[in-house]
């Protein structure tokens, strides 16, 4: 028998009990990787070790241990651990959810942009059509740096607004248009939303009421979402 092998063989039993000192243990581990006979011998000693675990006569702990465990179980659930596959699936689902949310938001944003472009297109086309119509009245205005024109079609109850150089509006505010009757009452005509990088804004007011009942047009700065009646500072006032 090889002398080195014999020396290692003598340490196997202690290794099985975890009683070898660290340096001997490391050396034996390396030897075990290449020595089948020693691995077989180790297995036998380890069975003895496992037997020693179970060899002691059972000795029940006090009932308070069981009660304490039940209390600890109620207080702390085991950490929820996912297998790799479950974690991967969960991650994929979470990613899909995030992408869906992003997509929905993008679709909503695109819809809003589309609606705004449609509104602008409608306003522009209507305003051009009104310009070409012989009975349209044009009312120019120039007040406090804001200039432009109102195109008024009293037969169709339409008012087109061309306003240049409106000041930028704060994020929590909006420009609201009003038509003013002879009693001074105001009827909302909708909103003007200045676009970035564009010096003018166009809007068309289409009334269900006869336009002949109104004598003035105004713009005020209102809280975002608008007001039933003017509450903010006046930006523009034009006689019709």
């Amino acid at each position, binding site marked *: 028998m090889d002398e080195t092998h014999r020396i290692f063989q003598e340490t196997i039993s*202690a290794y099985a009990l975890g009683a070898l000192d660290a340096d001997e243990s490391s050396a034996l581990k390396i030897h075990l990787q290449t020595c089948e006979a020693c691995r077989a011998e180790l297995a036998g000693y380890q069975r003895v070790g496992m037997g020693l*675990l179970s060899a002691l006569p059972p000795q029940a*702990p006090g009932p308070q241990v069981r009660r304490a465990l039940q209390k600890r179980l109620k207080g702390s659930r085991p950490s929820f651990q996912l297998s790799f596959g479950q974690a991967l699936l969960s991650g994929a689902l979470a990613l899909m959810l995030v992408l869906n949310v992003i997509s929905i938001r993008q679709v909503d944003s695109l819809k809003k942009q589309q609606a705004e472009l449609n509104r602008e297109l409608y306003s522009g086309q209507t305003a051009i059509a009104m310009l070409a119509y012989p009975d349209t009245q044009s009312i120019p205005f120039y007040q406090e740096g804001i200039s432009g024109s109102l195109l008024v079609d009293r037969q169709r109850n339409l008012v087109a607004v061309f306003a240049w150089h409106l000041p930028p509006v704060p994020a929590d505010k909006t420009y609201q248009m009003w038509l003013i009757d002879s009693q001074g009452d105001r009827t909302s005509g909708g909103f003007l939303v200045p676009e970035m990088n564009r010096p003018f804004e166009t809007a068309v007011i289409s009334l269900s009421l006869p336009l002949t009942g109104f004598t003035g047009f105004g713009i005020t700065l209102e809280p975002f979402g608008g007001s039933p009646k003017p509450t903010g500072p006046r930006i523009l006032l034009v006689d019709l």
Partner: protein
Amino acid sequence: MDLSEDDLHLIQRVAQNDQQAFLALYDRYAGRVHALTLRILNDPMMAEEATQDTFMKLWSRARLYLVERGSFVVWLLTIARRTALDRLRMEGRRPLLSDSTDPEGIWPVLADSSRNEDEARWRSLYFMLHDMPGEQRRVIELAYYQGLSQSEIAQELGWPLGTVKTRMRAALEHLRREWLKDECAG
């Protein structure tokens, strides 16, 4: 009743956070776990704490148990031994465990002792240990139930290291030969 299959069913339910299954395993094995922690710690209060900790580890790690790698009771008692010896270390009474006692490390070479799970087999090993010469039994107990290395045992008992090695080897060889002979015969 096939105990190992029943254990497997319970451990699978524990892995799904079933408290009733957990308590069933506790009722079945608390005596074994507590006997081991008490033997190692030799302090009733600390042993009960270690028993609690062992079962809490079972609660949180149940899904890590793999039936193909060994019997459940061996897995549980290995956790109990480790927990109790770590407690000794924390108390400053004993050194760190050798990693060869790590349950993950020894499992691959273990036979499934559930085949030999009858009390008589374990009891016979217990009596074999007690029937040994005192100096041999002492080194086994210090190594296995106190987590001491051979050089620490030599220091503890005031024996030459070579004597400790010889007695430990003789003791374990005797246990292996006699106990496994019974297993082969049985």
